């Protein structure tokens, strides 16, 4: 225990057991009790359904690494999904729809970052406020109704394949690679580690922690925009409550994945395994015909257990 405290950069391998064991246990459990869980069709279904969550959980990892939180992500995703639907419906162009989603998402991300960094409002309250705003705007732009009749070019994104791999999975893999490169192989990534660990050091190095913080939240908003396109494509419509609560699954994935809420160190591969754990849990409970309400409750329990273990580890 004492030796571990001396090592400044904990070896990621030490943390593999936590989330990997969770994933293996869940897969083993559902292989045993859920008929059809291990079929190729179902497993690829789990992967495709986890793509939207991946796009939220990766930026959420960065945000949590800065000792922040983004509760607005699900509501912003809902809003961007509606923007994609409305704009692509009006212009018949998937790219313009994506552009609108990206714009709105990034705007919300910048607003979150501004509230947290410049005004100094605690992240969970600032993003709770923007959650309300995004939810309200979703209701206002959609008038509480679904947006239907979106063009095929949007819908096809979810069902198309590239070299035999579903496009959403390709998008998720590209996203993962981009985040991995960004966090571990660029200066910006190093600064993100410093934002959570040692903000003073950034200031002494002549950098502006505030600008960096805004950038991190903006990335989260932009990713919610891209995920909004996938959400619209998946539902073949825009719906004013489509993404509500997804931020919770994202937080769950990050927490299960071993990123600490208090020490500013993050682990992207852990988050990816965390996303799969949440995906397997929901899929497996679904297969044994437990309603989605029970899935929500079990994800809640998963988060509380993961945070408890995280607390134990940080005190050890």
């Amino acid at each position, binding site marked *: 225990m004492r030796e571990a405290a001396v090592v400044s950069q904990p070896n990621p391998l030490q943390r593999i057991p936590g989330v990997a064991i969770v994933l293996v246990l869940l897969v083993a459990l559902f292989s045993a009790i859920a008929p059809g869980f291990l079929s190729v069709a179902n497993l690829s279904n789990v992967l495709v359904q986890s793509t939207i969550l991946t796009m939220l959980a990766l930026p959420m990892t960065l945000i949590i690494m800065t000792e922040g939180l983004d509760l607005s992500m699900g509501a912003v995703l809902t809003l961007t999904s509606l923007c994609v639907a409305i704009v692509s419906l009006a212009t018949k162009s998937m790219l313009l729809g994506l552009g609108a989603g990206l714009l709105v998402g990034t705007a919300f991300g910048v607003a979150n970052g501004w509230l947290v960094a410049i005004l100094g409002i605690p992240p969970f309250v600032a993003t709770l406020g923007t959650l309300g705003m995004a939810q309200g705007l979703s209701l206002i732009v959609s008038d509480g109704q679904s947006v239907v009749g979106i063009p095929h070019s949007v819908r096809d994104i979810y069902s198309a394949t590239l070299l035999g791999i579903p496009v959403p999975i390709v998008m998720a893999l590209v996203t993962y690679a981009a985040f991995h490169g960004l966090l571990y192989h660029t200066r910006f990534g190093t600064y993100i580690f410093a934002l959570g660990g040692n903000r003073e050091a950034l200031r002494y190095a002549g950098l502006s922690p505030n600008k960096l913080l805004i950038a991190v939240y903006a990335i989260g908003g932009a990713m919610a925009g891209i995920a909004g396109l996938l959400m619209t494509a998946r539902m073949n419509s825009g719906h004013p409550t489509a993404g509500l609560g997804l931020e919770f699954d994202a937080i769950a994935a990050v927490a299960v994945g071993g990123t600490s809420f208090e020490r500013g160190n993050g682990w992207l591969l852990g988050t990816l395994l965390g996303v799969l754990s949440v995906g397997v849990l929901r899929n497996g409970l679904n297969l044994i015909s437990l309603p989605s309400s*029970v899935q929500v409750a079990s994800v809640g329990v998963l988060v509380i257990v993961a945070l408890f273990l995280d607390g134990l580890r940080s005190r050890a």
Partner: protein
Amino acid sequence: MTDIAKDAIAPPRSFLSQDAIQVFYRLLAAFLICAVLAVLSDSFLSLGNILNVLRQASLTFFIASGLTLVVLTAGLDLSVGANVALSACIAGTVIHKTGSPALGILTGLACGGIVGLLNGIMVTALRIPSFIATYGMLWVLNGLTYWYMAGETLHGFPAGFRQIGSGYLFGLPIPVYLLLVFLGIGTLFAQRTIWGQEIYAIGANPVAARLSGIPVARRLLLVYAVSGTMAGLASIIFLSRLNSAEADIGESLTLPAIAAVLIGGTSLFGGVGTVFGTFIGALILTLVLNGMNLLSVSANWQPLVTGIIVILAVWLDMKTRRRAQ
């Protein structure tokens, strides 16, 4: 130097005079909103509408008053809305099954209290940050409620029970009397009891509180349990007023409750604020939403406006405190 020394040894009652100024500003804001609404809308000053505002404000206040104590300890309880929904559904089932409103009320209060106690255990024993612990609880409760109700709606309760939420006494809605009672109890508890003052101390400086012998964990447990029980009380009022219970009734309650606490001048950073301030906060928020309603703004705008108000309230609070220092 002498000022600092005076501050340090001044009895906690000196909080009141400072808070009195804060409360005065907020009362002024409430009157200004009333004046504007009275000009803009003919029906605002009608007796029916004013009683309606008071009744609506009392519902927000019940949830927000318990939450105030939590925020005073520098914590947050995001599960209050979901707690109201679960407690209402369980209390409603008990009334339907046993026919006894008293038993239903007790069950609702107990359910809310137990949820609050679990929150407290997560925060104290498991040492999970309160906003994450109660956020996890929110989804656990949501899941439980939807599963328990399975899409059903409970409808139709005894007339006597419905009086609690919709009845009148000497021309005033019964929830308003309850509001006055709990406003009194809450204020007395926070300002005039040792436990109340210990809660302020924990929020102002948890380490100092622990070193001066305050049983911090037990007080935190109490605070979260009170917040949960008040959510249970709110669930009873809701149940009796709506005369029905559904799994989704709590979803729009948490943000307004937090807004009421923050508008009321209770600081997110703990140690500063009053239950009376929260009452004014609930009143201001209700006036704004009522005004939007009277001016026929669609209800779809309410989450947007509440969200903006939450952020504005925190920002103003931080600004005034920074200037004061």
